[in-house]
């Protein structure tokens, strides 16, 4: 048993060929998940009990079950029904990529909506009172006061969730998708060299995570450019 550096040099380009799919999964489900999260957030703060309750149950279910189980239910489970196989969604649900994006979107939406809600709830009440005093309507207050402040307040927690989403994209390899992890698993099955392949792939993910953290740091500093520095 020895650490084979040549194997790393050979396998790294192969694994990086899957970077596109990993990125696609991250960006598409990250974007759609954010839209879903905003919808769930609006349902939760709408003040209508039935909307609030539906959103709460949704969040409870998707945060309480493993993402792998959600992926399997969507990819292997849904085709059990004739109605799904004949519906217009079938061309998405037939493809593993479509299923992975759907599962990741539904999952991350539940987590992100709670993060956004935390941001909305921590907006200073005094500012909203000031808005009312200026004669702003509830909608105006939400758009001009709550939204910009809540965005900044929820950004640190949101960046953590994007990183978890990146890590969750690796689970797409369990439903035959050839993302970076999927390719790595194929190489290991051929060469039986888990250390070389998995450790070098882990490095790729760590660099990726690090880059995302830096990116969010920049955005956070940009959004806080008007605020007074504490300390």
């Amino acid at each position, binding site marked *: *048993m020895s650490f084979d550096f040549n194997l790393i040099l050979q396998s790294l380009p192969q694994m990086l060929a899957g970077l596109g799919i990993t990125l696609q999964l991250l960006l598409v489900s990250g974007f759609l998940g954010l839209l879903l999260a905003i919808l769930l957030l609006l349902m939760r703060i709408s003040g209508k009990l039935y909307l609030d309750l539906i959103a709460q149950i949704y969040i*409870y*279910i998707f*945060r*309480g*079950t*493993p*993402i*792998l*189980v*959600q992926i*399997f*239910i969507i990819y*292997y*489970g*849904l*085709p*059990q*029904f004739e109605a799904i196989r004949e519906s217009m969604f079938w061309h998405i649900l037939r493809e593993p990529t479509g299923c992975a994006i759907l599962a990741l979107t539904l999952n991350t939406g539940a987590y992100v909506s709670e993060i956004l809600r935390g941001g909305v709830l921590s907006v200073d009440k005094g500012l909203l009172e000031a808005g009312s005093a200026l004669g702003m309507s509830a909608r105006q207050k939400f758009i001009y006061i709550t939204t910009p402040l809540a965005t900044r307040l929820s950004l640190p927690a949101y960046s953590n969730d994007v*990183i978890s989403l*990146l*890590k*969750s*994209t*690796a*689970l797409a*390899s*369990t439903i035959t998708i050839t993302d970076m*992890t999927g390719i*790595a*698993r194929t190489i*290991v099955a051929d060469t*039986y060299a*888990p*250390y070389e392949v*998995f*450790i070098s*792939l*882990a490095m790729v*993910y*760590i660099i*990726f*995570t*690090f880059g995302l953290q830096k990116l969010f740091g920049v955005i956070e500093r940009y959004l806080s450019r008007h605020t007074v520095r504490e300390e």
Partner: protein
Amino acid sequence: MEVLNGWWDDYFWGAIIVAEVFIASLFLMILFGLIGAGAKLSGNRLAQKTASAYTVIFRGTPEILVILLLYYGSAITLTAIAQIFNPEIRFVDVPPFWAGTIAISLIVGSYATETFRGAFLGVNPGSIEAARALGMSTLQTFIYIRIPEMWRIALPPFGNHMLSLTKDTALISIIGLNETLFVAKQAITVTGKPFTMYIVVGVIYLGFSTIITLSVMGIEKFGNRTTVGTR
């Protein structure tokens, strides 16, 4: 529902395995978290650097990669070691239970490191000074002042870490642990009802999540019974 007849006991034993993984990984996660937090708070530069590397690596790598690396990697290493003593041996592996449990404890332990570190730093310095003034030793201060104050701070994020451990257990089915998701796969090959079988898995995990969430809420109430509300 009749399709589930005959599988209930398999699911039950699968659920018992989920509970076993949870208990074992909970202890290991606390251990790794405390060691990590201790190293980060110690004055030793080498210990600090090692702990930082630990958190960066395990928070940046997908869970599935850590599990696969630990399982296949340990198998290769152990086989190589065993062959030194007895060349007849073809293959030795760590049971998936322990490879998986150690993997998820290492991952969640890296998050717990930050939680414990923050909680120890959150202990009121006034309380520690008061303990000194009363003539308590460092050990006494640690046991009677630091620990009771820090665990109240650490509890809410710690509850989330316990939920992560439970949900990550599903990933261990990938290396062959016969927990509920693994049971479902076997049931599907016989019955051909993937949706039904995976939904049962989802419900079992949701049950575990609910029990943990409710327990954490109860413990939080108990922990704060003597503190005055701050808001």
